């Protein structure tokens, strides 16, 4: 990253012995600086220097694994502040919080909700990944609850500042649990507990300066599997800290802040679901790595999971939906067929409008290369042949007795060709904008 060819060159013996496969030490160094060849290829650079270099060439933000096996997720590892610069690589996780102070019935209800709010959206499972368990008073009950969370397939976050309590609880938490965690008063003891359990250690402090000092202290104790608490008392501070910590890591090359963050939205807006949703949304965009809510019902999950899916998609690779025939508003085998492209945004906009119309219909999506309607058409991926072949191959005629096929208004030019290729269908030009679909469909139905 920040290492220049010259920095590496200084560490070589400058003998140009060619053992690395490069004609000169300089050529080797230049290539190594870009990551094109591993430093190890030169046998004459000392171990010490290699270690120094690998520190310096490490990405600005560490990738921290949480959970294990099927629940394992990676946090952090980002190299940019904004998604248009380069892909954001690891999506944030969502958490809800339980406590040993809750009644068994409340815990069961919360667990049932976790199982219920669990669904697929464009090929991705949407569910809460982490469950924070906050210690109140009963260590045995607390440990049992942590164990239960792990057994439910969620990543436990053990929230206590008591190292003994954490130690007992982490024993049943499975690999990759999070201990939340270390403060200036318990750092050494907590590091021991986290090290022994190979757990991720959360770090909390009263100010961003104190947090930085504490992280350095913990790093000196030899532990670097950390997540940083942005603060639980003030929204202003939490937001500023989340932004400043990430900015320091990415722009300031401050390795002590190169860790994922934890945001306790449930503490910042206790009892206020809508404000928690607002905060969660803000932190999905601005550098929250684990976002903790009081609960996650569909009113929060549907928009927040959708937002997260959007923000963490690869900007170079538009999201696509699977080419197939989709059904809307419970069609009964006699309803019209609309056509659009497999670009997720186009699909969603059209799907939303068909749903809004409440008119039963089918939506045929051929493989159009993942482009928008006009781009796909211009690229030859959404022409009359593509559409006609799809209608035939997917045997759309057997799904519905209707022979109305509705084209996006933007590709009205295809109407004639398509009508020739699909003689049994009535090819209709639909509206230019999806927004006009509800009226269009209702008028057609009338």
């Amino acid at each position, binding site marked *: 990253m920040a290492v220049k060819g010259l920095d590496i060159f200084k560490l070589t013996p400058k003998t140009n012995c060619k053992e690395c496969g490069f004609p000169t030490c300089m050529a080797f160094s230049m290539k190594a600086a870009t990551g094109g060849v591993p430093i190890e290829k030169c046998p004459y650079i000392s171990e010490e220097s290699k270690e120094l270099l690998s520190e310096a060439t490490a990405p600005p933000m560490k990738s921290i694994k949480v959970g294990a096996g099927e629940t394992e997720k990676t946090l952090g590892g980002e190299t940019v502040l*904004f*998604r*248009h610069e380069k892909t954001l690589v690891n999506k944030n996780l969502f958490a809800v919080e339980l406590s040993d102070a809750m009644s068994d019935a409340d815990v069961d209800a919360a667990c049932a909700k976790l199982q*219920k709010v669990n669904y697929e*959206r464009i090929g991705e499972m949407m569910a809460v990944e982490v469950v924070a368990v906050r210690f109140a008073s009963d260590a045995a009950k607390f440990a049992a609850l942590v164990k239960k969370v792990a057994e439910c397939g969620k990543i436990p976050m053990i929230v206590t500042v008591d190292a003994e309590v954490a130690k007992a609880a982490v024993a049943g938490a499975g690999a990759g649990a999070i201990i939340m965690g270390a403060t200036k008063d318990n750092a050494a003891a907590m590091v021991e507990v986290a090290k022994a359990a190979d757990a991720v250690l959360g770090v909390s402090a009263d100010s*961003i*300066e104190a947090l*930085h*000092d504490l992280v*350095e202290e913990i790093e000196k104790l030899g532990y670097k599997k950390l997540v940083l608490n942005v603060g639980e008392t*003030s*929204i*202003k501070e939490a*937001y*500023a800290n989340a932004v*400043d910590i990430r*900015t*320091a890591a990415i*722009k*300031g090359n*401050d390795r*002590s802040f190169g860790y994922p963050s934890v945001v306790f939205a449930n503490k910042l*807006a206790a009892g*206020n*679901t*809508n*404000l928690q*949703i*607002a*905060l969660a*949304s*803000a932190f*999905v*965009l*601005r550098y929250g790595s684990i976002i903790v809510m009081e609960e996650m*019902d*569909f*009113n*929060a999950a*549907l*928009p*927040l*999971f*959708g*937002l997260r*899916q*959007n*923000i963490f*998609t690869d*900007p170079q690779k538009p999201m696509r939906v699977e080419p197939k025939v989709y059904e809307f508003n419970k069609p009964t085998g006699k309803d019209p067929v609309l056509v659009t492209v497999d670009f997720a*945004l186009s699909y*969603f*906009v059209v799907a*939303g*409008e068909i*749903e*809004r119309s409440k008119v039963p219909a089918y939506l045929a999506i051929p493989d159009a290369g993942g482009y928008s309607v006009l781009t796909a058409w211009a690229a030859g991926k959404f022409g009359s042949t593509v559409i006609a072949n799809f209608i035939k191959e997917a045997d759309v005629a057997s799904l519905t007795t209707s022979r109305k096929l509705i084209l996006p208004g933007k590709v009205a030019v295809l109407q004639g060709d398509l009508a020739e290729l699909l003689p049994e269908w009535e090819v209709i030009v639909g509206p230019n904008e999806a*927004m*006009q679909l509800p*009226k269009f469909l209702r008028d057609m139905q009338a």
Partner: protein
Amino acid sequence: MPYKKAEQKFSGKINVCEIGVGDAAISIGGENSLPFLGTEGFKTAVGIAISDVTDEWSDCFGTIYGDDLKNPAALAKAAVEKSGADFLLIKLESADPNGADNSVDNCVATAVAVEAAINVPLVVEGCKNAEKDAKLLEKVAQALEGKNVVLFSAVEDNYKTIGAAGGMAYGQKVSAESAVDINLAKQLNILLTQLGVKSKDIIMDVGTAAAGYGFEYVASTMDRIRLAALGQNDEALQMPIITNVSNEAWGVKEAVSTLEDAPEWGDQEARGIGMEVTTASACVVGGSNAIIVRHPESAKAIKSLVAGIIG
């Protein structure tokens, strides 16, 4: 090493734009940092949206507003009172030639009545038919001369009429709509200024999408616009951003499906608010200087968010 803040220093500054008049006037914009990271007192204004056609609004709005739902002036008053919003948007949807095709005169009368009923600044939204909106917003600008309202919004096909009438002849603010496209946003701002509209009288409506529905384009468009305005000091992009999320948020299935359609999803009103709050909040941190929602509870949540972040 002790912590040292990595400052992102910017040379550019967002224009300050005042809307409304007298005690009720508010100003938006003015920041010289990314949202909420500076010390310049940046504050996002929160608006509440109403429409002169509410037939398709979710049932919850009937419960909230009762008979006022059919009377724009009464609805405007109730919406401001119930939401505590900083300003109000009236959508003159009935003007739509593909809908009710209400006359320009009738719609202007509605806008005038709404303006008289409230004590906060007004944004007047057309029906999204470029030709009709040109006539409509021109007349609105004339009828509300001196009230410093926002004409929402001029597009490529009608910016000349709306810009000339609103921004110049009758001294209103002109919002320029660019459908999530930074180049179009810039081009429209340049065209409007070349026409003679002062840049401080222009607000950008860069568009939105509901959360989960391609919002990444919105997020990146706003990031890029703000970075260009602040970092590269691009004057053609230094206008404040105004975003109406209400139509998108309340138009997706998560908000539209009734409890009957989707029993497992639970309360429909809560889902609509969740969608609206999520979308609005994401726009607020992205850089919207004025954010518009439909549900009074959404407005309250966003106001709390903004108050919380400013501290």
